[in-house]
């Protein structure tokens, strides 16, 4: 036994998969200890906040100001603050509606561009062919440019009871704050999702739940497959015929269809994480049954099994001591594959709206489902779906690597 384990850990594929899987497992365990916030707390009011560090605006104003020796002239300010897309959009507008010739425009010279813009832009010009959102965009851009041109800094004022403003302080263009001085900054490494929840924290908890689903579904499928495979392989005869018939039947009838039908029929109300896991487990045992059965058939007439039979050992004992140890490696490999396919099944079910109907816990599939429902993939919010796809792929990849590694150890013909 110890020797086998040693041998397994000499397989580079298995070790790679094992390390990846362990790193993920440790992250799932350790992360919630460090970040104790509720993974489903809606921290953002609005959807899909970009990844980054968010600081409290009013706190930055009252925080200690540091003056940097930077060029605060208008030219450098425009250079800094006008990005490329804004410049090309401005140039585009000027050519289409401002009556400016394309050769006159140089988007790299921000001062000249802004001058042209201020001379020619007016929101009342006939802008046929522009959608309303774009029209509004240019109005906003114009206001922004005006603000950039006002060079004297921004005045912070407070309103008193009569409504008169009194100046509190001035924010100069060259004043900075140190992010460490601020108490209320919040770093969202993966931004927020469509509900304004912290995607990273949610992802970790979703990975945990998905692994749980995979483990439950995989165990159920393996237990059913193992029992049926053992019975049909060892007993043979009519029982074998019946079990083989049923197994072949459910191999051909797509489990996807059964999953959809059962998940739909149990209804929205009762479909929790565990029930989904059980449903997946109960529809994916055929593969294990087949491979266990063929293994058992090859073992059935070995000498040690016959000897056990002659000694009058019970069926249970023969299976436990003479057959199971020989197929244990296959069962472990089947379990590993079942876990990864269980996670995938949950994700697919959830994409169709048949996943766990719960708002209390997240799963990888549910995260994908919400991200696509809110068109994260169409509006550029990559952080809402890409890490999820990557996590699903990484879990499956590590499990399959482990499986291949095991296969090579126990099946010498496949060794490279």
């Amino acid at each position, binding site marked *: 036994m110890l020797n086998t384990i040693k041998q397994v850990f000499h397989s580079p594929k298995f070790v790679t998969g094992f390390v990846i899987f362990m790193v993920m497992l440790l992250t799932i365990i350790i992360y919630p200890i460090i970040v104790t916030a509720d993974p489903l707390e809606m921290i953002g009011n609005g959807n899909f906040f970009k990844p980054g560090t968010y600081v409290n605006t009013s706190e930055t104003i009252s925080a200690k100001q540091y003056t940097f020796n930077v060029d605060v002239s208008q030219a450098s300010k425009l250079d800094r603050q006008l990005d490329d897309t804004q410049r090309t959009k401005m140039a585009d507008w000027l050519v289409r509606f401002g009556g400016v010739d394309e050769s006159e425009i140089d988007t790299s010279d921000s001062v000249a561009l802004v001058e042209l813009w201020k001379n020619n832009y007016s929101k009342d010009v006939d802008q046929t062919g522009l959608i309303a959102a774009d029209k509004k965009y240019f109005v906003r851009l114009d206001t922004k440019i005006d603000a950039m041109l006002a060079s004297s800094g921004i005045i912070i004022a407070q309103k008193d009871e009569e409504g008169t403003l009194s100046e509190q302080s001035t924010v100069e263009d060259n004043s900075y704050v140190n992010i460490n001085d601020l108490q209320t900054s919040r770093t969202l490494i993966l931004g927020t999702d469509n509900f304004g929840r912290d995607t990273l924290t949610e992802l970790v908890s979703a990975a945990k739940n998905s692994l749980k689903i995979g483990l439950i579904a995989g165990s159920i499928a393996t237990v059913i497959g193992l029992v049926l495979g053992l019975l049909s392989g060892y007993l043979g005869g009519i029982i074998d015929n019946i079990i083989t018939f049923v197994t072949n039947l459910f191999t051909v009838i797509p489990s996807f269809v059964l999953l959809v*039908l059962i998940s739909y029929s149990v209804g929205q109300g009762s479909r929790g994480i565990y029930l989904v896991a059980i449903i997946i487990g109960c529809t994916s045992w055929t*593969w294990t049954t087949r491979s266990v059965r063929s293994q058992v058939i090859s073992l059935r007439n070995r000498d040690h099994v016959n000897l056990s039979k002659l000694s009058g050992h019970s069926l249970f004992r023969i299976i436990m001591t003479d057959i199971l140890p020989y197929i244990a490696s296959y069962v472990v490999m089947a379990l590993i594959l079942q876990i990864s396919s269980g996670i995938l099944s949950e994700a697919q079910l959830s994409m*169709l709206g048949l996943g766990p109907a719960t708002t209390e816990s997240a799963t990888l599939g549910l995260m994908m489902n919400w991200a696509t429902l809110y068109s994260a993939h169409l509006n550029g919010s990559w952080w809402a779906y890409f890490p999820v796809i990557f996590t699903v792929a990484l879990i499956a990849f590590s499990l399959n690597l482990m499986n291949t590694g095991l296969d090579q150890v126990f099946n010498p013909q496949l060794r490279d």
Partner: protein
Amino acid sequence: MKGFRKYYGQKIIWYLITFVIAVFLNFILPRLMPGDPTSAIMSKVAVGMTDTTAIQKVMAEYSAKFGLDQPMYIQFFNFVKNAVKLDFGVSFTQYPRTVSDIVFSSFGWTLALQLPAIIVGWILGNVLGAIAAYIRGVFDKVILPVCMFISNIPTFGLAIILLVVFGVNLKWFPTSGAYGFDLIPNASLEFYASVLHHYWLPFFSIVLAAIGGQAIGMRSMSIYELNADYVKYSRFLGIKDRKIVGYVFRNAMLPQITGLAMSLGTMMGGALVAETIFSYPGLGSTLLSAVTGQDYPLISACTLMITIMVLLANLFVEIIYGLIDPRIKAAQQD
């Protein structure tokens, strides 16, 4: 020839039995669930529809169709009778369209998308796997891990990645639908061009998803075959490498064909979900909208259609297998 007829006869009978059981499961599974399922179906009618006259009409039609007061077996025969007549009733969500109308219009799209995609992916994967096994070295070391990682990305994940890269960012391909939304299906060149343009992204995501797994399977099969005695013997006899590779490929193909039959259902399930990413008007998207709209007759018809597709595809694979596997030929001639 007589042996073949027997072999195929057995296969077809077996698939017919499977089909009947699949239909039975389609009927019984929703009815096995706790609570009174038919009244649940009725209560769902009202959720999906707003037009009161439509609700009444559908209600009346369904209580007559399901024969709610009759025993289960009569209900089953009614179900089968209606299914044979391709009469699945009226859709709850898309009233007054009939379910069979909706399902048949989406069935064509799914078939045209998935059949070529799975076949192309399977062939490409097998060729890649065989090459990787034969050449080994760097080619193998690069291809294998890449294939392994890709094959572990779910199909819908690949679909989203392709969609974002080629549709949203590069704008080479449209992001949704099966043809331009300004077009009405007709036999014009413009329409076909648009269909083709919309076809590539869903097509390649299914192909990519199929390639990875097949390549890995084919690689290990080929390595297994390359170590076999007949290869060593052929080398010893001085038979050309090309010819040996031909033998190896043919022998390694056989388990791959069985593998295709076994994984067809899973592959199609993945591809159906990928369809929804592109809003491709196939069975996958129809199933999604039926689930969201709690449209029971439509779900039932969709799952039945998918089952039929998978069963037919499997039967087809088995027929091909019988033709090319020399062992079956030999067994039948005895």
